[in-house]
């Protein structure tokens, strides 16, 4: 129980009367002090009785609309107070907001039951900027009759689980079909290793330490167990994190989805013991480089670099997006230029300057960051290794040249592509147009997959892809999406 100013003033009045009684030697005034004290004690007793009765009949509801949310989301909070009978007490109920919650208004989330009122309710939006499990405290009820004040904690304490914005169901596949892009790789031969392969009888050329004594005891003759031979599947990751990879909602951009897939590849490579390296490419060029290795420190560093990776800022004018169907491949340009050489008629003379830019085209591609990144990666690769190119479909010409380059010195090339149409906001409003763009992307992906040694996979949100494919199926049936 906390006394208010009014109660302190009354107690001061009793003390004043007592001092005055002593000063004037008048016991009557001391009687007055005693009676003021009686009044204070009676008032105090009435307050205790009223608070006790109120606490027994008071119902406080503190509830949230959703028990889970994403970071940055807003969840409505309802605070309600009900008491069976109206009393002379004033009640103020304040919500027990967790530390990780914020509200827009400057005032705390609170309701007041004036004397005579029996119920009050308030709904306020609560923001959740921090991920984690947040548990509300019980609501704080402050009871007062003007002379004394008491604070109680009453009601429910709900829990809200806030998850960070991150990619949801990730689709990795070809043309809408899911695929397993990476898994165990068989060496195709027997030798020393960890995975048992077969059991055979002992021959004199076998070493004694390779005898399997359990099998020998079981089969009564000497037997040797063969193991899968370990391989050195060197993997070089080239991850594009230029500004165009920032397309998409916060936490669900192209880079976020691609990052999750690459992290899974790294985890698999670590499990298999494959030497893995990383090159990251931004708008200005290579931003990080790590040679392939099999040490735990190397894998940890790759993982940390990927987790910290963010899209770089776009330098100068934005990159223009051209229609995939209108691109002229480098091979086509070279063939046409060769055909025009030596031809002196006016028509050929007019066309030659346009195809002469083939060299300029080559130089432009070579200067592109992703191409430069793969070229750097070639230094670390072997013929049995694999280059993993992680990017989007915004620059098909660069991508085609880059993949061609990667094929030259590497055993295999895996291309993880994020289709822009699945990440841009508002594109699904026009489902048919979105499907057409997806078809263009799929054409690019298939062109790349047709190349020897190249596997190109799409990476995107499963739900948005299904929406786009559904529009395509509807169109195929003759309806409208």
């Amino acid at each position, binding site marked *: *129980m906390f006394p208010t100013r009014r109660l302190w003033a*009354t*107690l001061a*009045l*009793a*003390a*004043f*009367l*007592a*001092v*005055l*009684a*002593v000063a*004037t*030697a*008048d*016991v*009557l*005034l*001391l*009687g*007055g*002090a*005693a*009676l*003021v*004290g*009686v*009044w*204070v*004690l*009676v008032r*105090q*007793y*009435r*307050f*205790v*009785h*009223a*608070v*006790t*009765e109120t*606490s027994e009949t008071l119902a406080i509801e503190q509830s949230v609309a959703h028990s889970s949310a994403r970071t940055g989301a807003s969840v409505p909070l309802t605070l309600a107070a009900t008491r069976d009978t109206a*009393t002379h007490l004033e009640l103020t109920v304040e919500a027990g907001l967790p530390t990780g919650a914020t509200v827009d208004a400057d005032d705390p989330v609170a309701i007041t039951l004036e004397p005579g009122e029996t119920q009050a309710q308030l709904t306020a939006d609560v923001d959740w900027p921090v991920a984690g499990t947040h548990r509300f405290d019980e609501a704080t009820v402050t009871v007062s009759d003007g002379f004394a004040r*008491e604070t*109680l904690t009453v009601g429910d304490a709900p829990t809200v689980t806030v998850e960070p914005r991150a990619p949801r169901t990730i689709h990795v596949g070809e043309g809408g079909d899911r695929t397993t892009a990476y898994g165990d790789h068989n060496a195709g031969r027997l030798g020393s290793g960890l995975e048992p392969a077969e059991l055979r009888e002992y021959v004199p050329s076998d070493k004694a330490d390779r005898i399997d004594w359990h099998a020998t005891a079981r089969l009564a003759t000497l037997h040797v167990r063969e193991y899968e031979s370990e391989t050195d599947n060197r993997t070089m990751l080239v991850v594009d994190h230029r500004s165009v990879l920032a397309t998409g909602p916060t936490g669900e951009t192209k880079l976020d989805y691609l990052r999750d897939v690459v992290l899974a590849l790294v985890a698999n490579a670590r499990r298999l013991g494959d030497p893995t390296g990383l090159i990251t490419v931004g708008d200005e060029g290579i931003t990080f480089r790590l040679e392939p290795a099999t040490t735990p420190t190397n894998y940890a560093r790759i993982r940390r670099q990927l987790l910290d990776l963010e899209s770089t800022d776009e330098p100068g004018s934005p990159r223009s997006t051209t229609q995939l169907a209108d691109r002229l491949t480098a091979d086509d340009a070279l063939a046409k230029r060769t055909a025009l050489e030596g031809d002196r008629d006016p028509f050929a003379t007019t066309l030659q300057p346009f195809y002469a830019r083939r060299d300029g085209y080559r130089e432009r591609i070579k200067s592109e960051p992703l191409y430069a990144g793969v070229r750097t990666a070639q230094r670390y690769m072997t013929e049995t290794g694999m280059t993993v190119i992680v990017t989007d479909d915004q620059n098909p010409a660069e991508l085609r040249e880059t993949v061609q380059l990667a094929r030259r010195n590497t055993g295999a090339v895996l291309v993880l592509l994020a289709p822009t149409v699945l990440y841009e906001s508002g594109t699904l409003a026009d489902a048919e147009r979105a499907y057409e763009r997806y078809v263009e992307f799929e054409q690019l992906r298939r062109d790349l997959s047709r190349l020897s040694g190249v596997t190109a996979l799409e990476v995107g949100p499963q739900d948005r892809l299904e929406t786009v494919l559904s529009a395509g199926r509807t169109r195929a049936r003759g309806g409208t999406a």
Partner: protein
Amino acid sequence: MTVPSGRQWPTILGLAVLTAVCAVVAGPIGAIAGVTTAVIWYGLGLPYAIAAGHVVLAAGTDIGIAAIVAVELGFLAVVLASLVGHPSSRPAAGVALVSAVGLIGAALLVSTFYALWLAAAIVLGGIALGAYGLHRYELVRLGLVADDNPAEYPSHDD
């Protein structure tokens, strides 16, 4: 000037009785003290009314112990009348009677046989003790008392 509510009529009746008692005990000064008490009650509340009535009486007259007891009973009647119609009026009245008998009785007894300052100290100390006792009573009733008892070790049956 607003019309007194229904709950205030017992207090008004008590003030009338007080005024009559004061008039009998102290004459016109007593009546003035009673009226002053009623006016201050209407404006500032009962504790200030009690104080004002006592100051007027003490300033205007010099009465004996018996008269002091009668006046205090008159004021106590006003305090009891103010409880009529409120929830928990009976136990509250019990608290008023017990504390009044204790405090006023102690004031009169100690001031008669000992020094007045000692009686004043006992009255103020009694008020503080009573307030603290009610505070602890409230904590117990509301379950707000912290458990300071250490955990008991499990006993093993022999």
